[in-house]
């Protein structure tokens, strides 16, 4: 028995050591929500002057462009730490009550969530429009629109369903959507218009873009969900299919929607706490406004120019902010401007 002691004692000492060090560590450089903050893009040289801003980043690159530029300015112009949190759009709202999320920078509608978190719970408030108009629709690759223009009218879609068939859609035509977390009406539209199509998720925005790109290059039939603002449309100008136009209330029944998507005025949502105590960071978020073109430029930088760079968002934001042509735009967002 005695022989065992040294090993055990040593193990004990080592574990104790870890504990002691763990407890005595950090205070120096700690930011309000811990050292995780350093993971956000960039500038270790600038100390946190105003604390940490938690920005939810939803999984599409247009949103990422907003977060990149706002985050860059918060860090470099106002001296905040920025923590970006990759979250699905509706999950992000769950971060408001606890302060996990301070800011949602590109909100697409979501009246039900506004009802729940702004009206009922009172944990979030609106922080103005982003200046971007969101358009969602049904799109086809340009070659298809050129060679078979009849595809652009929804009334012909049933006749063409055969051509859109894939192994995933069985005996129906395939209608491709993106990330499963995106809010879409497509199944309800297909249902209401009695179209012989099956909704198939591509899995992510990147996979959806990849599918459209491949369809254009290889002249394949493809119809799917797409949206602007979106840098990809500058590379491959997808054509929008005409659906029965949107009218107020035509999307009331979530099971059956016989009309196109409405245009969305994209806006920003912040937590109540952040609105009350966010100081100049809140001012910046509230004033942030730019055009679809601005966003497409930054999104294009992120996806293409800095592709594969671990800090693509930070570099893209830096490039856009340091371009003199954009200075007037972003200076106007700074507090006191």
């Amino acid at each position, binding site marked *: 028995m005695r022989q065992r002691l040294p090993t055990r004692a040593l193990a004990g000492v080592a574990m104790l*050591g870890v504990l002691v060090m763990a407890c005595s560590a950090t205070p120096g450089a700690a930011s309000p929500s*811990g*050292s995780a903050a350093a993971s956000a893009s960039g500038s270790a040289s600038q100390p946190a002057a105003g604390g940490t801003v938690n920005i939810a980043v939803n999984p599409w690159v247009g949103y990422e462009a907003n977060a990149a530029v706002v985050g860059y300015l918060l860090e470099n112009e106002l001296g905040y730490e920025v923590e970006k949190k990759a979250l699905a759009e509706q999950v992000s709202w769950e971060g408001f009550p606890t302060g996990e999320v301070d800011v949602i920078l590109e909100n697409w509608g979501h009246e039900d969530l506004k009802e729940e978190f702004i009206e009922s719970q009172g944990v979030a408030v609106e922080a103005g429009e982003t200046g971007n108009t969101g358009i969602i629709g049904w799109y086809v690759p340009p070659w298809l629109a050129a060679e078979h223009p009849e595809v652009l009218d929804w009334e012909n879609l049933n006749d063409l369903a055969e051509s859109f068939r894939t*192994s995933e859609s069985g005996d129906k035509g395939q209608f491709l959507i993106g990330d*499963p977390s995106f809010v879409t009406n497509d199944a309800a539209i297909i249902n209401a218009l009695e179209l012989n199509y099956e909704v198939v998720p591509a*899995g992510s925005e990147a*996979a959806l873009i990849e599918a459209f790109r491949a369809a254009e290059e290889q002249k394949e039939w493809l119809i799917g969900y797409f949206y602007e603002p979106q840098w990809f449309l500058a590379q491959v100008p997808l054509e929008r299919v005409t659906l029965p136009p949107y009218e107020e209330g035509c999307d009331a029944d979530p*099971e059956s929607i016989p009309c196109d998507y409405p245009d969305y005025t994209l806006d920003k949502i912040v937590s109540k706490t952040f609105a009350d105590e966010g100081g100049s960071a809140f001012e910046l978020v509230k004033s942030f406004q730019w055009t679809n073109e601005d966003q497409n430029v930054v999104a294009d930088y992120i996806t293409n120019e800095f592709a594969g760079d671990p800090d693509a968002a930070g570099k893209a934001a830096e490039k856009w902010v340091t371009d003199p042509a954009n200075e007037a735009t972003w200076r106007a967002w700074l507090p006191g401007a």
Partner: protein
Amino acid sequence: MTAQALPSLRRRPTARVPTGAAWLALATVTIGLYIAFRGEWTLPHERSAPLFGVFNDARDALAETRRSVPWFGAILDGIRGFGTWLAESAIDGLIGVGWPVVIAVTGALALVFGGWPLAVLAAGALALVGALGLWEPAMQTLGLTLAAVALSLLFGIPLGILAGKSERVQAALAPVLDALQIMPQFAYLIPFVILFQIGPGPAALVTMLYAMPATIRITALGIRGVPSATLEAARSLGTTPGQALRKVELPLAGQTIGIAVNQTIMLAVSMVVITALINGPGLGVTILRAVQVTNVGAALEAGLAIVLIAIVLDRLTEQATVRLDPRSQASYSSKADRPRRGPAPIAIVGLLAVVGVVLVMAVIGGRWDEFPEEASGLTFREPVNDIVGWVRINLFFLTDTLKEVFTAVVLNPLEGVLTQAPFWLVIGAGGAVALLVSGVRAALIVVACLLGIVGLQLWEHAMETLATVAVATAITMTLGVGFGIGAALNARFSRGLRPVLDAAQTLPAFVYLLPAIALFSASRFTAIVAAVIFAVPPVVRLVEAGIRSVPAPTVEAARSAGASTGQLLRKVQLPIARPAILVATNQGIVMVLGMVVLGGLVGAGALGYDVVAGFSQRNDFGMGVAAGIAIVLLGIALDRTTHGAGRRRQVAEAGLSRP
């Protein structure tokens, strides 16, 4: 992951050998009824079935209660706050003490438990993580894992002791643990977001819940494994039950409990990665982002970092278990006989060095919380992405044809049969198969589970998922049995395979999606490929172990009777290894099911998509919950059909002394 192979302590029903005639009759009747009633009595999917609305309302009522009943909200907030505090302390601690300390302490522990080779492995692995530029997310993952494991052990070991000592506790816990172990990782997240929102706290709590069944089951197994004679002897000497527990049972169950710790850690590591979806920090975030932009190289780097951490934790706890077990010490009569792992003086020197480093740090200050930038330029994402890009462009015709043909010839017809058959026929046939394979009890459970799925109004999607699972399992078993036989017959092949299997089993399920999606883009086939990669390793292991367990005298006898290697395999080894192969099938199915659900993230559809949508879309919450339950029911049905529970125990017990 390997823990899913571990024990279910149910008593094993006696196996019945089905006669050929019974199978023939079943097949004839089923086919006849299918032809007669095809397309009738089907249950097509409705996205807003009434039941889903009920779940949605329950969610809203819960949120309302939380607001209106202060103590209810306070309890939830308290639990959340505690989890958050624990997780953040662990993470901040690991990052705060600085990388030299983490590496040195880990190295010293490795030295104490496993000697120099392990010390070099542990320190090297952590340094490599830093060199990949992933130190901070890696420490977040490690901190979150340790916090969750601490909680799992804190609650799991006492529960395990109770279950080990009381039949009643055991019986009460068994179905709960079954459900928790079959529930796919993803499905855990949905209720957690409702109760505890998002962040590191809920992430630690959900990981605890996922890992704890293994803690409880293995601890119980250890307590039950204490020889009753020893216990009687202790009792007759007048020890109180408390003393007996402390002085006899726990020490003797020590090694098994060590395995419980080891398995808990491995399960926690795999779950922590998934918690990125609810804002759990760490490498999971890196992987999630990479999946979203299909950056295979970046995901692979983060995946490698997770594997390195998992290997260090695995080896460390494994060696510590061996080292601290009284029996392994007692079996060497003198110190000189013991295998020399780590000379103690060197360990002391190591620890002193650590203390020295800490002191120096304290004195000179400086930033140790970030891994030095000069040393962290190691990357292989570009070559990986280049390869993937090349394959995607140049082998597209091959991968695409494979996917299309396979889907059209195998997957779609099977899915068609299952969804077009009357639901009562599928349930009847499923029950009959379970009856033939596993007996009356299993058949009743299977029928009940399938009826439950009908009740959840998810029949069509469940059948689509079943088709995918069946196909993936068939491929997994073909490959797994093939490799398993190869490994059992050829020692060199087995040795070569082992590190590959090790790595494959520690890699989080998430990571498997990437190569699959890169090659086959989003489809059910992609999910099948990922599931096969995920599930093959344990099947290989179980089959190999099964064949190797055939007693040597039996093999010799067959040889001397003139059997060739092929005959030996067919007539002797495979029949005797049959229970092990059945367990492997069972294990394969459970793992495939879990992966197919994760496949919902890459367009695999059906129940997996319902769960993913339910998690990320508010209106589909009810559907997601129902789909989560449906998956558990489907899993239990498949598990019972393949007669998992009873046989799993056998092999788990045999396998507890890890190779």
